[in-house]
């Protein structure tokens, strides 16, 4: 099924509606529309896309976090939203940067119920706080864990194990 919308069409409409909140477009290998947005406008952009009569982007595919420790200050954490329009066969990827000292962003649980656990997973792995989330606590890791494991400074192995000697395991 061919896509009924084009990247340029949607990007123009977004820029027309939210002038300053939309940043640059990134060219990706899979050719989906990838746009950097301002993290403060996430909720209204996603809501506008949901309610748009022609675009009908009404399916949340996924929300991810990424950690870039080498980025400039204020842009170390990134939240990526994958949205999908089933009727038009169009996918869009929204990216928002967050500072690592205070990674707070609005939650989109009131638009998509699926965002509930996905945002909890992003919080569990990266420590990104979602405002207005009904139940923001850890989901996959133990509640007593006190660090955010997917950040780049932590190893995948358990740091407290005593029996495995790193010399023999090639670490």
């Amino acid at each position, binding site marked *: 099924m061919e896509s009924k919308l084009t990247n340029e069409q949607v990007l123009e409409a977004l820029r027309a509606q939210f002038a300053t909140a939309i940043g640059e477009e990134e060219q990706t290998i899979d050719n989906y529309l990838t746009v950097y947005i301002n993290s403060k406008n996430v909720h209204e952009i996603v809501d506008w896309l949901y309610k748009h009569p022609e675009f009908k982007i009404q399916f949340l595919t996924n929300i991810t976090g990424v950690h870039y420790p080498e980025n400039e200050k204020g842009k170390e954490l990134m939240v990526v939203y994958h949205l999908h329009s089933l009727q038009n066969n169009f996918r869009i990827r929204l990216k928002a940067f967050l500072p690592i000292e205070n990674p707070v962003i609005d939650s989109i649980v009131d638009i998509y119920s699926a965002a509930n656990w996905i945002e909890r997973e992003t919080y569990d792995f990266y420590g990104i706080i979602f405002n207005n989330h009904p139940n923001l606590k850890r989901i*996959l890791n*133990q509640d007593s864990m006190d660090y955010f*494991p997917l950040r780049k400074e*932590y190893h995948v192995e*358990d*740091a407290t*194990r005593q029996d*495995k000697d790193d010399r023999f395991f090639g670490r």
Partner: protein
Amino acid sequence: MGKVTETGQMEAINYEGFQLTKLDTVIGAARANSLWPLPFATSCCGIEYMAAMSPNYDIARFGMERMSFSPRQADLLIIAGTISKKLAPVLRQVYEQMSEPKWVMAVGACASSGGIFDTYSVLQGVDRIIPVDVYVPGCAPRPEQIIDGIMNVQALAKHESLRRRYSPEYKHLLDNYKIDNDIDGE
């Protein structure tokens, strides 16, 4: 049983008779051939365990027709799959609820030693929290390997001394795991 004639052949007798054997042997045979397993199946090894239950491999012929999902009624705790640190207290509680004599079989690489998952969230082997009798390696082990593990457990059950669970060595083993063993009522 039969009378042994000079040629060494057995004759069947058709009157009531006596069988002379040791208590250990009879009880060992009864225990070994009627183990009720508790399948603690968490992940992929659980599917191979389900395949072992299927007619192609059939563990029902080893006396395991009935899976006991209640620990109080189970003899053999089969841990098939990865155990994470979040699940470890649950597993420990299930083990403690089982009554003696009980055996533990760790199926798969993840249950034996953590497997390929040397991560912050996976328990590196179930024998860190409970004593294990038989390890079945593999990822996932074939149902024949699981059956081989079961046969090893049967061999253990058959030849176990009846006083083993009261012995100081066993108590020492459980003390290492900080498991309270009040089998003699103390």
